[in-house]
């Protein structure tokens, strides 16, 4: 009989512990837009990972018998002026966008995290100088800063990532620093110092884990911006270069010229950018609301 008693005891405990599905429903009720954004984010990531499987054609293959073919059963979203399948290029473009978006955001926010915490920890003159330098970096619009970086580093996927990462650093550092200032006053930091731990250890092991909330908020906020920046740079011809499929690049290749005769060439890549940025922004907003209710009104 002892065995049959077991399920009942589990059942009585069940209402307190929510299943994953119940938890999801709770979040969905509170953050319907965030869940929608999350769905778009997952869709984009899946598209990026399984691009080779999803795309019906090679994104760089030119079909000489079908220049600017309209959308239909053969080419779902039509072909561009070089006879390349728009749908396949959008799917592969997701790979470029998601890759650039995540790498630039995580690296940029990561460097910003260490710099911001370091600046708050050391304080004094270091902090003051650091703040001024960050102010100067912040006095340029993201795209101007990114363009200046392109002028220095050049074009191509890897360089575009660098160009987008650098302007993110001060933006994250500033937010992280303000949280780290209060963490520095915590007794456990004093304790760590009195034990004689090194600065590096205190910063990395004791302070960094306690500023994770603003750090995660910044990462999620950055991804959408990074995707938009990459698209803008590529559109200007200063980002990702042919033949790598990228959404901004698809709009650059004479999309205006073909706007009337083949509007699908201009419409779908832009739709992809908008959808991706929309999804990442909604998701980011929801993450921010959940992690930091104080920021909600902003």
């Amino acid at each position: 009989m002892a065995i049959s008693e077991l399920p009942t005891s589990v059942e009585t405990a069940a209402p307190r512990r929510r299943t994953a599905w119940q938890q999801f429903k709770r979040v969905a009720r509170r953050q319907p837009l965030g869940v929608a954004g999350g769905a778009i984010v997952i869709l984009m990531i899946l598209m990026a990972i399984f691009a080779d499987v999803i795309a019906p054609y090679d994104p760089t293959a030119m079909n000489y018998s079908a220049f600017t073919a309209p959308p239909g059963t053969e080419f779902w979203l039509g072909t561009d002026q070089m006879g390349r399948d728009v749908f396949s290029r959008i799917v592969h473009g997701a790979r470029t966008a998601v890759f650039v978006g995540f790498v630039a955001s995580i690296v940029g926010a990561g460097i910003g995290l260490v710099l911001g915490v370091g600046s708050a920890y050391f304080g004094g003159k270091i902090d003051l100088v650091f703040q001024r330098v960050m102010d100067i970096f912040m006095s340029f619009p993201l795209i101007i800063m990114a363009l200046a970086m392109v002028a220095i580093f050049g074009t191509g996927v890897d360089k575009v990532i660098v160009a987008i990462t650098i302007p993110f650093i001060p933006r994250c550092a500033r937010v992280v620093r303000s949280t780290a200032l209060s963490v520095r006053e915590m007794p456990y930091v004093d304790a760590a110092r009195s034990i004689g731990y090194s600065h590096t250890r205190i910063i990395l092991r004791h302070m960094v884990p306690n500023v994770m909330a603003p750090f995660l908020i910044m990462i999620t906020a950055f991804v959408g911006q990074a995707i938009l920046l990459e698209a803008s740079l590529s559109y200007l011809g200063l980002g990702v270069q042919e033949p790598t499929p990228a959404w901004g690049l698809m709009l650059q290749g004479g999309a205006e010229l073909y706007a009337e005769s083949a509007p699908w060439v201009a419409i779908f890549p832009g739709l992809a950018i908008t959808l991706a940025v929309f999804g990442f922004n909604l998701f980011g907003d929801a993450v921010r609301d959940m992690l930091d209710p104080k920021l909600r009104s902003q």
Partner: protein
Amino acid sequence: MHQYIIKRILMMIPTLFGAAVLVFFLMRAIPGDVCELRLAGTGATFDPDALRICQQELGLNEPIFLQFFSWIGGFFVGDFGTSMWTNQPIVSEISLRFQVSMQIALMATLVSIVISIPMGIISAVKRNTWVDYCVRGFSIAGIAMPSFWLGILIILGLLVGSQALYGEPWMPPINYVPIWVDPAENLAMLIWPALATGYRYSAVATRMTRSAMLEVLREDYVRTARAKGLVESVIVNRHALKNALLPVVTVIGIEFAFLMGGLVVTEQVFNLNGLGKLFVESVSNHDYTMTQALVMLVALIFVLTNFVVDLFYAWLDPRIRYS
């Protein structure tokens, strides 16, 4: 107030100087030499003589700090150097295009004010109704939509629309005409980029107006106004809006400073010969002197806009002036 103004002007100097240092040394951080890149950019192998002549022309063989100070010194006597691409003085290249970009920037700001303030108010007053959701959706879409794509869509819409209405496609004029020469022609050309940029920038201001209004509408004096039986429109427009506008003014001011970034892309779509296009060209042509000058111009616009916003703020809110 005078003291406040002087203090604010003095505060601008370190930021501008810092920006100059940053730009100058970043540009010098390029692996290799500006001249090498420029000559290598032409494709053919270059001879060392050409390299030396180029370096001499640009003063790159001098010590780096001397170069920096002669560059900075030039600002004070109005010498911004010459473009490495066109060999024209930078001042004349920029002044040619300044007018176009400034007009779009001002019009875009106007567009964004006209869109954002009424929408923000409606959204706050009708909070959590379908009106509010529509406004918020509209503004979130504005942030997510790349302005170059919006530009392409506008051009497409104009083409298709004019085809349907007049039977022949119409495109905005291509040649720039100053507004005092032919206002109709000028507006027909520049209204579209202003709309594309302004819509994008209205999104942030709409959000700001909404949240500021929501905050103010909770204040005691609004409740008092309601209690004494004032009409709701008077409460919203006279009592709440005036107090909610402060943060909105800041946001719109900061956006104006950042408008330069938006113009970079929009001017490309509409093929306008403005500062944004010049910037993109100078980056792709490895025109370092021009890139430097334009980045400094952006920093100057940013600093000046912040100055004006602060003054406006101090004028609106006496507490700031006397603190």
